[in-house]
Structures are given as structure tokens and as C-alpha cells.
């Protein structure tokens, strides 16, 4: 076990409801004829983990860029850490850490140099940054890689270094764009562990993801967006409870069509996608019983999850 970075730990943990760190009202942005963000409003509370979910092209990354003041909105109002964005986005970003996709680290620098140089962008003295580096490397499990070149790091290490770099200014808010995309399970779990630790320390986390298990694990609340519009905002459990039946039975194999027809009245909702029938129900017993008459069918009975909600709300069409 490693200890949390001390400069992060020394800060008193703010109570979770001391106001909002990010306020977005009526945000809209059009690129050419494509309405990327179409009237989004939401607020992120201090100390929570807020997820921005949506299929590819839903407007997640554009929304993040708008909130960081990197692009000019067509309409709407943004306040980040009490600063109007984009007018005073630079001031707001003094207190924000950003973990973008694809880890744009400096390939010509070592691990430690990446952190040192990044600290300078915040106007931090090298002495202050140097004093933070050992703890951040420890936090990112990169202590032994301190003087390694970036090219020699694995994908997980690069992501953890990008995360450590985003913490160099001891930010109040950490923004992550798809933090575990492209990582293996071990690396993903380590990132989740570190994010949970930051939450315990009182940091606010805003992340985008299309991994539903990630959102379910980490997020206190999440906003599902599609076509640049908000389509649901709640806790993962709240969304699952509100939007979908608690049991899902997935069935495929020979005789599926016959069974599906017969069992239609036994479930609350039925959906057939290609060769698979999904039966959504509050009481699974009669459905499972009906399946016993069709032994060749392959059956998966599982609790409903966020992915079911997501697919119900955003549809099953591919977004490419």
C-alpha cells in the first residue's frame, strides 16, 4: 500500500454539499451543420464524482472542452470554480487538473521532468514541484520509473503519469476524459482505486466514459447525453431503479423465436436483437420456468445494470 500524496492529504476535506464547482446552463455549440452540444444544463457538486456518459459522438468531449474554456460556446453560461468561462477560464484552470485521452506526455522528457515542467505552467516554483514529485510518483506507482523515458512506459504507466501530472497543482477538481480506455483489467482497477482515494481526499471528479461498469463503480451521479442533449441525470442505482426492470434474462440458441413468442406475456418487456432475446422483468420465476421446456437454449440471468439503461435510452444503433 502506498500513502496518498501528502500535499493532497493536508487539505481539509470539504463537506460534499458546499456549493457547486461547475454550473452549466443552456450550453450549445455547433460545428458547421453539426449541433455537437444542444442546450445542456447541469451542475457538479463539490466532492462528488460526476460522470458524463454517452455513445461516441454524443458531445461528451466537446462539453468538457467547453467547460474548460478551450472552445467558444455559441450559447449558454458556464461557471467553473466561481469563475466565468471562457472569460476567466485560465484562472479557473489554476485549480483544475485535466487527464485527456491518449496521454499527451512529453516524449523527450523523463517521468520526473514531465512533472517538473508541467508544474512551471502553473507558475509554481521548481522547489514546490520537486517537493511534490516523490509523493505523486508514489501515488502513481512510478517511483522506480522516475528517470525513465516515456517511450519505455506501458499504457497503464502512461495513464498514471498523466494523472499524476494533472495533480501537480493540487487541484480541487480533476477532469478525466475516458480514464481507462485502452487499459488492461489490472491497470483499470488501479486507476479506479486511485480515483476513489482522491474522492476520499475531497477532490471533485468529472469524468467521461462509455464503460458502464466504470460509471457504476465510481460515479455518484451521472448525466447521460446523446446528440448533444441531456437524456437522464441521476445516481447509477437511481437510473437503474427508475429506467429499467431489475432482472434481465438473455436467451439465444435454437427454438429461441418459438420460446420468445410464448413467453412474451411473462415478462414486463421483451427485446430481440439479432439472435438474442432480452427479457426484462420484475419477477423472473415464470420466465425461467418457461425456459425449462426449451433445454437447448442458452440462458443468462443477471441483475439489470447501467448498460441496459444506457442501451434503452440511447438505442442499439452503432455510432461510428
Amino acid at each position, binding site marked *: 500500500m502506498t500513502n496518498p500524496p501528502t500535499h493532497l492529504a493536508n487539505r481539509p476535506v470539504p463537506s460534499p454539499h458546499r456549493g457547486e464547482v461547475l454550473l452549466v446552463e443552456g450550453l450549445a455549440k455547433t460545428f458547421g451543420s453539426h449541433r455537437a452540444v444542444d442546450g445542456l444544463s447541469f451542475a457538479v457538486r463539490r466532492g462528488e464524482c460526476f460522470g458524463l456518459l454517452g455513445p461516441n459522438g454524443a458531445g461528451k468531449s466537446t462539453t468538457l472542452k467547453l467547460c474548460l474554456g478551450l472552445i467558444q460556446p455559441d450559447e449558454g453560461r458556464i461557471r467553473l470554480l466561481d469563475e466565468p468561462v471562457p472569460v476567466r477560464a*485560465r484562472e479557473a484552470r489554476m485549480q483544475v487538473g485535466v487527464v*485527456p485521452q491518449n496521454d*499527451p506526455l*512529453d516524449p523527450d*522528457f523523463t517521468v520526473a521532468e514531465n512533472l517538473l*515542467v*508541467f508544474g*512551471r*505552467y502553473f*507558475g509554481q516554483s521548481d522547489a514546490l514541484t520537486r517537493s511534490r514529485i516523490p509523493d505523486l510518483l508514489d501515488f502513481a506507482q512510478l517511483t522506480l520509473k522516475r528517470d525513465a523515458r516515456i517511450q519505455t512506459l506501458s499504457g497503464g504507466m502512461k495513464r498514471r503519469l498523466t494523472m499524476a501530472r494533472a495533480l501537480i497543482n493540487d487541484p480541487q477538481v480533476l477532469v478525466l476524459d475516458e480514464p481507462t480506455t485502452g487499459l488492461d483489467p489490472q491497470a483499470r482497477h488501479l486507476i479506479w482505486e486511485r480515483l476513489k482515494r482522491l474522492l476520499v481526499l475531497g477532490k471533485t471528479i468529472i469524468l467521461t466514459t462509455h464503460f458502464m461498469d466504470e460509471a457504476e463503480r465510481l460515479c455518484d451521479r451521472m448525466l447521460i447525453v446523446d446528440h448533444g442533449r441531456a437524456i437522464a441525470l441521476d445516481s447509477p442505482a437511481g437510473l437503474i431503479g427508475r429506467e429499467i426492470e431489475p432482472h434481465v434474462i438473455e436467451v439465444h440458441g435454437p427454438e429461441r423465436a418459438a420460446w420468445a413468442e410464448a413467453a412474451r406475456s411473462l415478462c414486463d418487456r421483451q427485446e430481440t436483437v439479432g439472435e438474442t432475446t432480452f427479457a426484462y422483468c420484475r419477477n423472473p420465476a415464470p420466465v425461467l420456468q418457461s425456459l425449462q421446456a426449451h433445454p437447448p437454449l442458452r440462458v443468462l440471468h443477471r441483475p439489470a445494470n447501467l448498460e441496459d439503461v444506457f442501451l434503452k435510452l440511447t438505442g442499439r444503433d452503432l455510432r461510428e
Partner: protein
Amino acid sequence: MSSPPRWAPPRLSLRLIPVLRRHALVWRKLALPSLLANVADPLITLVAFGYGLGALLREIDGVPYVTFLAGGAVCMSTMLAASFESLYSAYSRMNVQRTWESLLHAPLNLDDVLAAEWLWAALKGCISGVAIVLVAILLDISRAPTLLALAPVILLTGLAFSAIGLCFNALAHGYDFFSYYFTLALTPMTFLSGVYFPIQQLPGWLQPVCEWLPLTAAVQLARPLVLGQWPPDVLGPVSVLVAYALAGFWLATGLTRRRFVH
């Protein structure tokens, strides 16, 4: 409530200093090969043309050809290095290596990032320009005290070509675009700017056009200084270089804002 309008003047701040330090730290790691690459071309030109062709020509405007050429070579060296840095290297930081993205996530504005590119590419130009001056001193091509006055000329030349390069960088969608700029703009310009021969050799109708080229202005200032004289006209060429540098950087800022922010 908005970002600066697209064509508002560039907003400069001292925040660009850590960005310059970043570029310098990278350069320190790769300095020797980078310097060789930048200086090789003008150096070969100076030695090959200066001594090779110079043996045939003997004198031009009353001085040995190599001495005549040296002033042009200093300007060309500055131009090439500043252009290379503001095109290939800046593009690589902007789009390939995505250094800009990291910078913009820190408390830096696009204007800061771009201004740092501008100054850095100008500085790279200066290093290459000064390297050619040192060669000229070492080879005893010129040891005139007026060489010292080349410093501001080299700086202005670097700033002008760096600014022009950043305009093209803002429009680029790949490295290929830059080879057009080099072969269609910079190479012809070296022949139209009096680097190799006086522009009085050009057709009469072309000469007034050439007067407005930034490289012509640079050569008009640098050549007399290499020959140990003061330029007959300082204000004209200096104004041309300042105009390219400032208007170019303003234009580059607007084009880059259009690409990123708007």
C-alpha cells in the same frame, strides 16, 4: 462573455516563459543534431557557391563573391531555421505530439502557446543566423565590427519568418503542405531577394515587387554590415521586417484561434 474575437490583437502574457523553457529543455537534449541540420544547408551554400562560383566570378559590387554572399547566407540561414521550426516542429507539437493540448489544459491560453512558438522559432532562427556569422568570422570572410549590428537584423528576420510560418501552420493538415511552402515560396524567394546576386540583375518590372519581400529587406540590412558599412536605408527594410513580424503574428493568431477556439 467570450474568448477574444477571432481577429482581436494577440494577448501576450509572461505565462509564455515556462513554455519557452520547455522548448529550450527539449532542444538542449537534441541541440547538436538540430543545429547541424539547420546550419548545414546555408553553410554548404556559402562554402560551395562562395568559393566555387566565387573563383569564377572573382568580384561582385567590388568585393569577393564569398563576402558578398555571406550577408545573404546569414539571412537565409535565419529564414530556413525559423521557418522549419514554425512549420514542422510547431505542427508536430500542435497535432502529432499534442503538446499544445497539454499546455492548454494548464492555465495557458492559446495566445500564450502561439506566442511561445513565435518567439521560440525566431530564437532558433537566430541561433542558425549567428552560427553562419561565426563561420564567416572563422573563415575570415568578414571580421568587420559592424557584424555586431547584425544581431537585431537576425532577430527581426527570425520574428518575421516565424510569424509567416505560423500562419501556414494554422492552415496545415499534414507535413506535405509545408514542402509546398518551402519549394514554392521560400526557394524562389532566395533567388528574388538578392541572396545570390543583386536584385538589380532581375527584370525591371520584378524589382519593385522584390523590394517588399521580407528576405530582401533582411539582405539589404545584413549585406552592408558584413562588408563593414552601414546600410544606406535602415528605416525602409526595418519597417518591412517589423510589418511582416507583427502582421504575420496577428494573422497567425487569428487563423489559429479559428482552428481551435471558434
